[in-house]
């Protein structure tokens, strides 16, 4: 590469400062997580590992489990709904079809968690839209319980993570050369078979990227489990918030989020190993 001119260092300054700030924030959490809690005070006490020990209590263990289960369900359903949409967006014949799908699919990404969660409260509530319609049609007699349930939280979370999944899948699908598919069809494969044996395997990188991002997003979702779960669906994020703001136990909130981050890393690492071995089996 070429000799570095002086301006390069000036150009690196903003990003280095930003990264430094991020590192400091993460170090602050790490430091808090090994300090003891002084009730009624924001000051922290001496160094201790008691916070991490307390994480083993059943309440927190079940929050970890709940978070992983929610994230898994959400990732799977988002993939199942997102794939046909991304496929249609890339392959639609008419330009207006592509634009329509793109705008409808992507706009929710820019609406923020609060607006979308609130909208789902109106849809899912016991006097909400869904129950009113179903009861009005005589399909059900008593309102379905969707609010404050895991199912309700998953429905809303799928809606929240769908746009990013569609983006990742579409980016992957758009790089597949259609000639492969045409070759399969001209060799006598039906459209279903051509899709299953050619397009689907080729879109694997997009599927993996989308699923992992969706998993990570669900992990960090807060408004949806908090408002739709209404205290009955406890995730790591809602626990961190309760500990930090209701009990003001910042050290424990810190250790819980450190453990949460470690768990995210482990799950993503496992997913990566799994997909690597899948690719080896599917590859040549």
């Amino acid at each position, binding site marked *: 590469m070429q000799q570095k001119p002086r301006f390069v260092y000036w150009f690196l300054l903003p990003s280095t400062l930003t990264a430094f700030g991020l590192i400091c*924030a993460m170090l602050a959490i790490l430091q808090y997580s090994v300090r003891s809690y002084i009730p009624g005070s924001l000051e922290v006490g001496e160094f201790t590992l008691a916070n991490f020990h307390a994480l083993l209590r059943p309440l927190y263990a079940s929050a970890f489990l709940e978070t992983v289960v929610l994230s898994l369900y959400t990732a799977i359903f988002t993939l199942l709904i997102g794939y046909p949409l991304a496929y249609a967006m890339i392959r639609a014949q008419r330009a207006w079809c592509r634009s329509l799908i793109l705008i409808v699919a992507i706009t929710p990404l820019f609406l923020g968690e609060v607006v979308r969660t609130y*909208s789902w409260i109106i849809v899912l509530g016991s006097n909400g839209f869904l129950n009113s319609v179903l009861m009005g049609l005589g399909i059900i007699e008593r309102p379905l319980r969707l609010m404050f349930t895991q199912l309700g939280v998953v429905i809303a979370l799928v809606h929240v993570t769908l746009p990013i999944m569609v983006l990742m899948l579409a980016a992957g699908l758009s790089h597949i050369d259609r000639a492969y598919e045409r070759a399969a069809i001209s060799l006598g494969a039906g459209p279903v078979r051509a899709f299953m044996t050619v397009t689907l395997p080729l879109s694997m990188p997009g599927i993996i990227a989308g699923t992992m991002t969706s998993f990570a997003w669900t992990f960090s979702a807060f408004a949806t489990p908090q408002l739709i779960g209404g205290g009955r669906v406890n995730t790591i994020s809602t626990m961190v918030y309760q500990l930090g703001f209701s009990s003001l136990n910042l050290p424990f909130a810190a250790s819980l989020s450190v453990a949460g981050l470690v768990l995210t890393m482990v799950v993503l690492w496992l997913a990566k190993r799994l997909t690597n071995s899948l690719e080896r089996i599917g590859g040549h």
Partner: protein
Amino acid sequence: MQRSRTDLWLLRAGQGLIALILLFILLPALVVAIASFNASSVLAFPPQGYSLRWFKNAFEYRDFQIGLWNGLIVTAWASSLATLVGTTLAIVIHRYEFKGKRLLEGLLLSPLFIPHFMVGLGLLMLVSQLSLSRGYAVVVFCHLLLVLPFVLRSVYVSIHNLDPRTELVAASLGATPLRVVTTITFPQLLPGLAGGWLFAAILSFNEFTASLFVTTQSTQTLPVAMYNYVREYADPTLAAVSVVYIVTTAMIMIVANRYLGLGKVLSVESR
């Protein structure tokens, strides 16, 4: 003609499926729109009467006014700083090798995978340990960290699509490296930067989870004010705010798609 009938059937089924999925995406927005015009203060379907009182209420509610103003200040700073940081870094990363390049890039992309509440909590703790006040600066910095990965991605795409020969021509005609960057590289990147800036601005304006941790009563942004409202009141005022939000966002998206080409900004255009 067995095959073509199956094909047609598949196509129709596919179209039906896509229509259903689009309906699923649009359903909450449609329902919220109906609810916002409901005259009664209790949510019910179908509404008993229609009125605009919740819209009036939304515009007059003090916390929403403050939240909107705070949100605009934070968004303007955060998205502009993110564009500055993202562009300078992307240009240097694209053209030069230096020590710690991958580390720096990885660190700045990591907020994609670090839960938002952790970024907020970390900054909150940092600020309290350094005994700084929780002002706008920490909110802006928090948003900068969270939107930067998206700006970087968008600038990378633009740099990638750049013709390197224009830079070489300028250099061979005697331009200094800095001059090449400011007069050749930068102007060609402008459309991509505008897209990245807009993307960052919309994301920052809507950021909620981390903002909840780093804002105070006086610096709270609109989503935080809305969250606090929904916890205290159950009337459809928030439905009215949501409708204003949805309509504004959809209009920005349609205009952006028209002038910037969303497909290109998000790199999902088919070849």
